[in-house]
C-alpha cells in the first residue's frame, strides 16, 4: 500500500480543502454549520487514525490487569475491527471491576481505576482537536 501520505495527513488535507475552498463558497447558514462540523470530525478522525491502535492496545492490557482477568484473550490481529473488539471486551471487564470496587467502598482500587480513566479521557481530550463546547 501507499503509506505516505499517512491517513492523518490525507484527512487533514481534506479538512484544509473544506475550510479554505468549500466553506467560503457556501451561502446557506445551515450548510455552513454542517461544513464546520465536518471539518472538526475530519480532524478528530485524523488524530484517531494516527493513534487509536497504539492507544487501544496499550489500554487493553491495563484494563484487563485491573479487572484481574486471568487469561485475557490475545489480539486476533492488528486490524482495527479486531483491536476495537478486544478493547470493547477489556472495557466491559474494567467497567464491572470498577462497579464492584465502588459498591465495596474500596477507595484504593477506585483511585487506581480512576487513574486508568484519566489516561482514557486524556486521550479522548487529545482527539477533540481543540474543540470546546459552545452551548446549545
Amino acid at each position, binding site marked *: 500500500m501507499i503509506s505516505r501520505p499517512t491517513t492523518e495527513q490525507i484527512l487533514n488535507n481534506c479538512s484544509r480543502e473544506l475550510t479554505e475552498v468549500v466553506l467560503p463558497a457556501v451561502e446557506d447558514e445551515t450548510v455552513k454549520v454542517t461544513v464546520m462540523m465536518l471539518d472538526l470530525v475530519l480532524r478528530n478522525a485524523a488524530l484517531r487514525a494516527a493513534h487509536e491502535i497504539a492507544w487501544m492496545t496499550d489500554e487493553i492490557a491495563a484494563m484487563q490487569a485491573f479487572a484481574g482477568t486471568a487469561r485475557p484473550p490475545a489480539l486476533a490481529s492488528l486490524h482495527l475491527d479486531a483491536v476495537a473488539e478486544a478493547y470493547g471486551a477489556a472495557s466491559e471487564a474494567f*467497567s464491572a471491576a470498577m462497579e464492584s470496587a465502588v459498591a465495596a467502598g474500596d477507595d484504593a482500587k477506585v483511585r487506581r481505576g480512576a487513574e486508568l480513566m484519566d489516561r482514557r479521557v486524556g486521550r479522548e481530550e487529545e482527539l477533540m482537536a481543540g474543540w470546546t463546547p459552545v452551548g446549545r
Partner: protein
Amino acid sequence: MNEGGAVDDDTPMPVRFERFLAAVEPDRAATVTAFKPISGGYSRVTARVDVRWSDGDEEKLILRMDPPPGKEGVFSSERDREWSVLQALWADGTVTIPRPRWYDTGEHLGTKAIVMDFVEGTPLQLTLQPDGDFRPATDIYLDVAATLQRIPLKALPGEIEHPDDWDSAIDSAIDIYGRGERGLVESDPVIRYVTAWLRANKPPPVPLGVVHGDFQPGNILVAAGREPVVIDWEFTRIGDPREDVGYYSGSPLPNSLYTADADYFLARYRQVTGLSEEQVNPDVMRYFFILGMAELMIQMMQGADALARGEPKPVMNTFLINSISYFHQNYVDICRP
C-alpha cells in the same frame, strides 16, 4: 393531501399551516403572513408564524414540530407527552408558559406539532454580558426554580411517571444512565463508574418536584413588567428539583450564573427554596450535575452508537462525540475519591 391523509412532501409549510388552522378554527379563515424558521435548537424544528384571521385579528404563533421522518436530530422526545405537560402547566398556572393552542398528530402538518402563542421577550442567557453584574439574573433564574417547586405534582398528567418516593425517583434517574449504557454496542467505563458512584453517594433527600429537564437561562424569556416565561418542556418529569439547578451548575454555557459566584448562587437558592446547607452545597450540585445530564448524555451516546451499528446519521451525531468526551472528563473529576 394523499389518500392516507398525510401531507404531500412538497406542500409548502405555510400552506399546510393554513389548512391546519382551517381545521381547528373552522369558523374563520387564516392567512399566514410570515413564516420564519428559528435556528439553534438541537432537537425540534421551530418556526414563528404570523397569522391574519378573516375577522381581522392578527396573531404571532410558535410552531414546534418533530423533524420529518429520516431527518431526526440527536435529541428526541415525545411530542404527545410534551403537549399534555403544556396543557397541564397552563391549567395549573403556577409557572408562566406560552399558551398552548393546538396540537397536530401529523395529519395536517406531516409530523407531530405543537402550536403555542409567541411570547415577546429575551432569553435570560442573552441578557448576560461578560463582566456584568449577574446577581439580578441569578435571582430571576432561582426564583423561577423555586416556582417550579411550587407546582403541585398532582397537576401533572398521568403520562408523567409519579414516583412513590424520593429514593425511587433518584433510582429511576440514575437508571437513565444504567439502562442507556447497557443498550450501547460497547461498554463505557466512565458511565458505569458514575452510575455506581451516583448510587453510592446519594445526597440528603428533599421533597419531589417538577424537573424541567433543560433548565438553563436560555429557556427563560424575560421582559420588563412581566413574569419570566419558561419554554422547552420536552424533557419534563417528576424528580428531585436539584437536578435542574445542578444540571445548569456544570453547564459549559458562557457567562454561567453559577460559576460567576457560586456562594451567592447557592445561598440564594437555599433562601428561595427553604432547603438547608446540607441539602444544597457545591458537592450536591456536582452530584446533580451528573444526574441532571443523564438524559442528554445518553441520547448523545446513542447517537454515536447508531453510527457504530452502521446506521447513516447526520454529522451532528459524530460531532457530538467531542461533547461526550468533554463530559467524560468532568464526570471522572467529580467522582474521583
